[in-house]
């Protein structure tokens, strides 16, 4: 904000608009998606992703029609919502789940007045709704390259501790790190293929779609706090949905703060709550609720730090 100066015309204009930014996010999601499709098989993933996106776009159109709003359901934001929601679902769940989840996600955005007014990340609300409503489906995970159900490394960790996790990977730490990096583990469709997520992050940063503050502080906090609590920090950042959340969910424009300082506080808060939920709550993973909780205080973060442009603070005598 501090870079803006009020000047006379002519002004520089460029082609960046909502549709461009949203499509950039969708494109950056593709590497991780392809990884997920290869790992879990296309029958378990592709129909789920497609239905989720279609349901999100249709619900957006429906709500805009009903509420007599301008019809902007093809601007890419609904597609991103449906896409993100599908990627944070376990593969192979019944197909009506993403449909309901996407509908609820769009609903949660439209009741607050549509894109730009929603306090919570719609895709995460959709996921939270599914996790709370259908916990049995949302915690049944497929084994990579197989259709046998298994549990995620984090679920094993919260039950049996680190030795249980190592048992999944023939007892070797380096095998564990390697196979988790390549996504050979149980988990959501989009979160397992770490290389794809990193490629997506690089794309987002290079095209200046997002800034580095939130992903870096989020990941750094998770790394440091897990290490202080005695968990293998590399395992901690490779497991669960932390990376997916930090790169694609926590950086959502509407629900994250604007200023660099507040972005750093926000990233730290997300990471800290995330690790606290992992260690001390009765859920194995807490990315969804960590980001949703920080979304709540986003407006406060900005208002506390922002200095309004063009106003002089009145002296209080």
């Amino acid at each position, binding site marked *: 904000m501090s870079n803006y100066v009020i000047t006379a015309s002519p002004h520089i204009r460029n082609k960046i608009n909502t549709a461009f930014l949203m499509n950039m996010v969708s494109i950056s999601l593709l590497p991780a998606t392809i990884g997920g499709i290869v790992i879990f098989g296309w029958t378990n993933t592709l129909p789920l992703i497609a239905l989720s996106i279609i349901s999100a776009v249709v619900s957006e159109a429906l709500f805009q029609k009903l509420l007599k709003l301008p019809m902007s359901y093809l601007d890419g934001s609904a597609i991103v919502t449906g896409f993100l929601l599908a990627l944070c679902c376990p593969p192979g769940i019944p197909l009506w789940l993403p449909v*309901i989840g996407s509908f609820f996600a769009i609903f949660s955005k439209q*009741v607050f007045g549509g894109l730009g007014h929603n306090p919570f990340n719609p895709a995460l609300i959709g996921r939270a*709704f599914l996790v*709370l*409503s*259908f*916990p049995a489906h949302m915690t049944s995970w497929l084994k990579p390259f197989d259709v046998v159900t298994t549990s995620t490394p984090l679920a094993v960790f919260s039950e049996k501790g680190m030795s249980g996790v190592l048992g999944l990977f023939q007892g070797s730490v380096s095998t564990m790190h390697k196979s988790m990096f390549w996504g050979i583990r149980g988990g959501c469709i989009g979160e397992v293929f770490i290389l794809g997520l990193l490629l997506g992050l690089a794309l987002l940063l290079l095209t200046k779609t997002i800034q580095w503050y939130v992903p870096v502080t989020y990941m750094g906090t998770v790394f440091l706090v897990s290490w202080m609590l005695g968990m293998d920090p590399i395992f901690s950042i490779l497991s669960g949905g932390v990376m997916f959340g930090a790169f694609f969910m926590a950086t959502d424009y509407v629900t994250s703060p604007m200023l660099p300082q507040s972005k750093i506080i926000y990233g730290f808060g997300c990471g800290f709550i995330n690790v606290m939920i992992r260690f001390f709550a009765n859920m194995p993973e807490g990315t969804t609720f960590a980001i949703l909780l920080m979304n709540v205080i986003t407006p406060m973060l900005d208002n506390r730090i922002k200095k309004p442009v063009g106003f002089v603070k009145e002296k209080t005598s």
Partner: protein
Amino acid sequence: MKTKIKQLLTKGLLKENPVFVLMLGLCSVLAVSVSVINALGMTLAFTFVTVLSEVTISVLRKWIPKSLRIPIFIVIIASFVTILQFLLQAYFPSLNKALGIFIPLIVVNCIIIGRIESFASKKPVFDSILDGLGISLGYGIAILSIAIVREILGNGTILGYSLFGTSFEPALMFILPPGAFLVIGIEIGIINHVSKKASRKEASK
């Protein structure tokens, strides 16, 4: 006279609905509306306490000193709640168990204290009976409309009877606390929308 009776009985429905418009006593409404049977039980309990304490206070209104009125109100409400609790424990132990702490909490329900303070302590007995019935009716309709939605969506049943067969998977969230907030928010939104439309229509006439 007839219009006055009608007005006293129906004002709780929409214009002064204690839950949807005045938004009082939400704690018990949100917590108890998990199932229709609990909501019905709560409504009856609420009606019992409201009507009887309004009548009692209306009878005694000339002897209650202004500076001591709140403690006196509380003592009167509390005695009716105690009677109610004993009745429930004796004849409906399962309902008593399901409603739990929310029966004793009727003592501090702000809807009842509000009605007594603003109505029963100033008006004659007959009016107070009608007022108590009207407000209880509004309360009952509000809590039942929330409970019906929550039980159907969150459990797939209504009054315990299964509606959709075994293949239906209920969305558990609706019988958890977030579902209560969600449903009451949507219902308040719809009611505000409808009443705004109605008042605009009236203004343009």
